């Protein structure tokens, strides 16, 4: 069975892209946790800037018409929004697959019952570690780990599908086997072992977080062993850090090809990190229809497809597999978002990855925790 969509169909407007598959709704940047690798931008949006309920409902209506199939309610902590339940109900009513991406520290039995009743399909709970002290230190939130364990048990008891997400880095990567065991013990259908992606806060804290090659190799071995042991019972998704890659990841399945992200204030982006890129006038759902943004806006067209590519991407056999890698990483590490992702061994900038990996051999500096005003 193919994992990909069927080949491009004939369309009247040859420039029109395929409809998006998924949409991430960053309902808010508010969050009780302060993880130093947060995927939110360094410049966090304030509550007063957030879209109101009716605007989010309209975005969901437009997304369903555009062809979005899966919506991910995220943040920040999406449960910090008082209207999460009506938004989930609205999305489910449109036939959208609804996923809640949560820290779960606010997820108690009544909240879960309301979400389940609203038609939620799946809950993804982030765990910072398997060790309570270590986990609470990463999130900078005392008691958080215990709340997450309790919430995960509630999710399983409710019958909802559960994923555990472990973001891994040098402070917890040695415990990947215990993470897999925790997923098994909690009855998760799926776990993610995802190395930190080094953009925004993660990049700011890279020297404190990037594991060594040897640490990564041990984790990879543990994941492969876990997959074999748990085949058919628990899916284990695994993401390595680009710093030890030879080929770049096909970031977001290609710029503006599969996915869109809506920020708390309503800006529409091809990924959650794209606001790190300069020189973009990001379209907003406050002023522009989602279909117009997806099909015709300049920011979504800029790096879509292969026409923008420089060498070595342009003539590469993998150009429609990895789509040139990640634009945010190209900008962060070379200063030019239009270059080949330096994660690629063929990139003329690839040496910057090895230089950064040498930081992992030195003692880790303290974290810069994710909170408004801490990135000074």
């Amino acid at each position, binding site marked *: *069975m*193919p994992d990909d969509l069927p080949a491009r169909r004939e369309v009247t407007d040859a420039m029109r892209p395929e409809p998006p598959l998924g949409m991430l709704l960053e309902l808010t940047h508010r969050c009780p946790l302060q993880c130093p690798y947060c995927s939110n931008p360094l410049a966090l949006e304030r509550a007063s800037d957030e879209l109101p309920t009716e605007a989010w409902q309209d975005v969901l209506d437009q997304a369903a018409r555009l*062809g979005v*199939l*899966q919506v991910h309610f995220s943040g920040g902590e999406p449960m910090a929004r008082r209207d999460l339940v009506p938004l989930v109900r609205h999305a489910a009513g449109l036939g959208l697959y609804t996923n809640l991406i949560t820290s779960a520290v606010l997820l108690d039995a009544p909240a879960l019952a309301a979400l389940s009743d609203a038609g939620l399909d799946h809950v993804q709970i982030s765990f910072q570690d398997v060790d309570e002290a270590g986990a609470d230190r990463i999130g900078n939130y005392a008691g958080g780990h215990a709340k997450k364990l309790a919430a995960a048990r509630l999710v399983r008891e409710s*019958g909802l599908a559960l994923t555990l997400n472990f973001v891994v880095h040098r402070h917890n990567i040695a415990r990947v086997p215990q993470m897999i065991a925790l997923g098994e013990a909690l009855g998760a*259908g799926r776990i*993610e072992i995802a190395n930190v992606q080094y953009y925004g806060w993660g990049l700011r804290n890279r020297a404190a977080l990037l594991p060594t090659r040897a640490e990564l190799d041990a984790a990879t071995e543990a994941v492969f062993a876990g997959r074999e042991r748990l*085949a*058919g019972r628990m899916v284990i998704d695994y993401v390595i850090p680009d710093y030890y890659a030879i080929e770049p990841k096909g970031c977001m399945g290609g710029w503006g090809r599969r996915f869109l992200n809506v920020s708390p204030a309503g800006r529409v982006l091809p990924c959650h990190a794209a606001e790190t890129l300069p020189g973009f006038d990001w379209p907003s759902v406050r002023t522009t229809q989602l279909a117009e943004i997806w099909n015709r806006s300049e920011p979504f067209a800029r790096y879509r497809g292969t026409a923008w590519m420089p060498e070595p991407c342009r003539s590469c056999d993998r150009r429609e597999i990895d789509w040139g890698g990640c634009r945010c990483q190209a900008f962060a590490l070379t200063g030019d978002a239009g270059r080949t992702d330096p994660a690629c061994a063929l990139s003329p900038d690839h040496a910057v990855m090895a230089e950064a990996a040498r930081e992992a051999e030195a003692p880790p500096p303290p974290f810069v925790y994710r909170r408004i005003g801490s990135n000074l």
Partner: protein
Amino acid sequence: MSDAADESVAPALRRGVKFRFDTVRDAWVLLGPERLFVPDETAVEVLRLVDGARTLGAIIDDLAARFGAPRDTIAADVTALLHDLAGKGAVTF
């Protein structure tokens, strides 16, 4: 899958997995946690019979009758397909 040859089991979509028709793409889609599959025509015919009640044997009988194909061939294809989907976390037995 406990036993690939056991046709008395009744496959079901796992919790958190949805199989529905998408009018925008004019295609059936199988949606799961961070997963999306666009099944081919054969897989669509199989998945439409996966309801947690019908046994694997009944699914094979139904398809063999409707498509006029040798039962052994259908059985091998259906079993392989469902085994693959179980490995991807979409189907359970």
